[in-house]
């Protein structure tokens, strides 16, 4: 904080212009602003480093083949040595500077990749992108611990996700078991973060990356996509699990964008249910009853585990709050699975059940919004119904009259519910004033 301002404040207190408390508040305000500026500096320095490092990657990828092999080899090691020296300086002299540690670690992250790329380029070494990413990620993971680098941890999650997708979805493909080992290497860092700064932005961003990464890789654990409904069951189980984690005690107080498990889980559940609210998906179900290939992969067993975890969450909540506060969204996977088992040969029934279930999820949010007098939650429930109504607009199996009535009721419902809640809010405000 500026010494001149401090001096002025003391002067103002002495002259009884402001109280000591006001002076303290002003001091706290300026100190806080300085901290925010520091955060801004950190973000800018990291962004700058990423841009410089990516620029080097691209310049290297141009391939300067007029240079001799030894010269190119020296250029390959130049950014690596520079980054290692910067990291050493950060460890020895700037161990308290987040900006220095994050920037130098990020630079080293890219320098390792650049060096390996250039060597492969110089000697024309073929090799899959997945094995390249695998080696690269193993070579940089210690930076997450040695320089406490959060940015490298995020880049690492991105790298291992890319690796797992290449291995699992590529051709030829195999189950990317190493993904779990690589992900587990981040566990101590994550635990450290949750212990020292549980509600911090870092944990929230980390959760977003992990939740997205696992959702991207989950499908690669299946070896057969013929029975796509089983993949949907697996993914719905994953999203229900995310949703239940996101609505559990440790997470439910977070803002929507800070709660990755809730947001991703709910969006995932709704998207899958909307897809299966159409007749054509049910018509495309495979008639092949041989599931041996599917059950030879780890995917169904992960799904089974998720079913058990979801059951545990629901049972615990039921014990605590009973039927009254039971959230249908988290149980969607059970309804979906039962529908697939019972109605695979009577698609119309399946479509009906999924549509009704979506309606139930919407009603749950409308009720919740109404009980809490919260317009956002209430309108979210109405939005679920509105999207459902829009999808059914194109459904020619429903007569025009019925579709018209659905639209009318939805529109009237939105107006009525909002008017009721606004009136209730006004009444509450008037009561508080009086």
């Amino acid at each position, binding site marked *: 904080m500026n010494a001149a301002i401090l001096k002025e404040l003391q002067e103002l207190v002495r002259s009884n212009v402001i109280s000591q408390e006001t002076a303290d508040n002003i001091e706290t305000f300026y100190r806080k602003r300085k901290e925010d500026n520091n955060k801004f500096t950190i973000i800018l320095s990291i962004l700058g480093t990423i841009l410089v490092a990516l620029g080097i990657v691209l310049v290297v990828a141009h391939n300067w*083949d007029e240079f001799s092999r030894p010269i190119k080899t020296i250029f390959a090691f130049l950014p690596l040595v520079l980054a290692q020296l910067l990291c*050493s300086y950060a460890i020895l002299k700037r161990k308290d500077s987040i900006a220095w540690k994050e920037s130098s670690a990020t630079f080293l992250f890219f320098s390792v990749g650049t060096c390996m*790329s250039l060597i492969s*380029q*110089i000697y*024309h070494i*073929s090799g899959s992108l997945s094995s390249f990413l695998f080696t690269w990620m193993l*070579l940089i993971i210690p930076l997450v611990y040695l320089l406490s680098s959060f940015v490298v941890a995020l880049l690492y999650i991105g790298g291992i996700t890319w690796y797992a997708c290449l291995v699992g979805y590529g051709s030829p493909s195999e189950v990317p078991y190493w993904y779990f080992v690589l992900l587990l290497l981040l566990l101590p860092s994550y635990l450290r973060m949750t212990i020292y700064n549980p509600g911090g932005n870092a944990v929230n961003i980390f959760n977003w990356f992990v939740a997205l990464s696992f959702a991207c890789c989950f499908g690669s654990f299946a070896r057969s996509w013929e029975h796509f409904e089983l993949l949907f069951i697996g993914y719905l189980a994953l999203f229900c699990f995310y949703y239940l984690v996101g609505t559990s005690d440790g997470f439910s107080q977070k803002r929507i964008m800070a709660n990755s498990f809730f947001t991703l889980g709910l969006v995932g559940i709704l998207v899958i249910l909307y897809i299966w609210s159409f007749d054509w998906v049910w018509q495309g179900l495979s008639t092949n009853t041989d599931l041996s290939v599917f059950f030879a992969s780890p995917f169904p067993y992960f799904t089974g585990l998720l079913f058990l975890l979801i059951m545990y969450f629901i049972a615990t909540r039921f014990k605590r709050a009973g039927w009254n506060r039971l959230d249908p969204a988290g149980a969607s996977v059970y309804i979906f699975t039962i529908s697939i088992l019972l109605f695979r040969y009577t698609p119309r029934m399946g479509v009906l059940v999924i549509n009704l279930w979506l309606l139930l999820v919407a009603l749950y949010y409308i009720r919740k919004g109404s009980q809490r007098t919260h317009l956002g939650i209430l309108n979210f429930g109405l939005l679920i119904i509105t999207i459902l109504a829009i999808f059914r607009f194109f459904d020619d199996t429903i007569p025009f009259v019925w579709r018209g009535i659905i639209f009318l009721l939805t529109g009237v419902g939105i107006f009525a519910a909002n008017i009721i809640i606004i009136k209730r809010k006004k009444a509450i405000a008037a009561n508080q004033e009086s």
Partner: protein
Amino acid sequence: MKILILPIFILLVLVQWYVPGKMIWNKEKVHLSGKEFKFETEPVDPIHPFKGRYVTLNFVSDTFSFDSSLQIEYGKDIYVELVENRNGFAEVRNISNTIPTNNDYYITASISSISSTTQNGINRSLVFIEYPFEEYYLEEYKAPKVEEIFRSIGRDTLHTTYAIVKVLNGDAVIKDIILNNRSINEHFR
């Protein structure tokens, strides 16, 4: 723990040097002591997000037929022994699932696919070999031009295109690509 940070970081620096250093050492050894083979080839022009633009070399000699008594597993390394044919180009003499003991000029490769056939009542397998040197990296503007030159030469049966590859103890490194009897780089001078 804080005392250990610097020694661990120095260890990491050494490992980060060792991995690319080992790549260089392996390839330099082949450059210095390897035997040259010419591999007839035809290329296409793809791109790698980090390493840049390259031409993929599809080698003519990339299959080998053997009787099914040889146990070769998909996904495991195979050892390809080479020999020069009448025209001076590399040809596969033999493949095995163990390192050849009496020959230094073999390549550690992988299997891209296996198909089974029957010849004179004997079951035979045809293996498609994936060599570890199928990418030739070039300056980004040159790669598409090389692909064009390759295509024009490819239509002319009088010309051959080939890669000069140095081979030693399972490892291999491309020394040059010859297009129309001239080194690939001479086409840009």
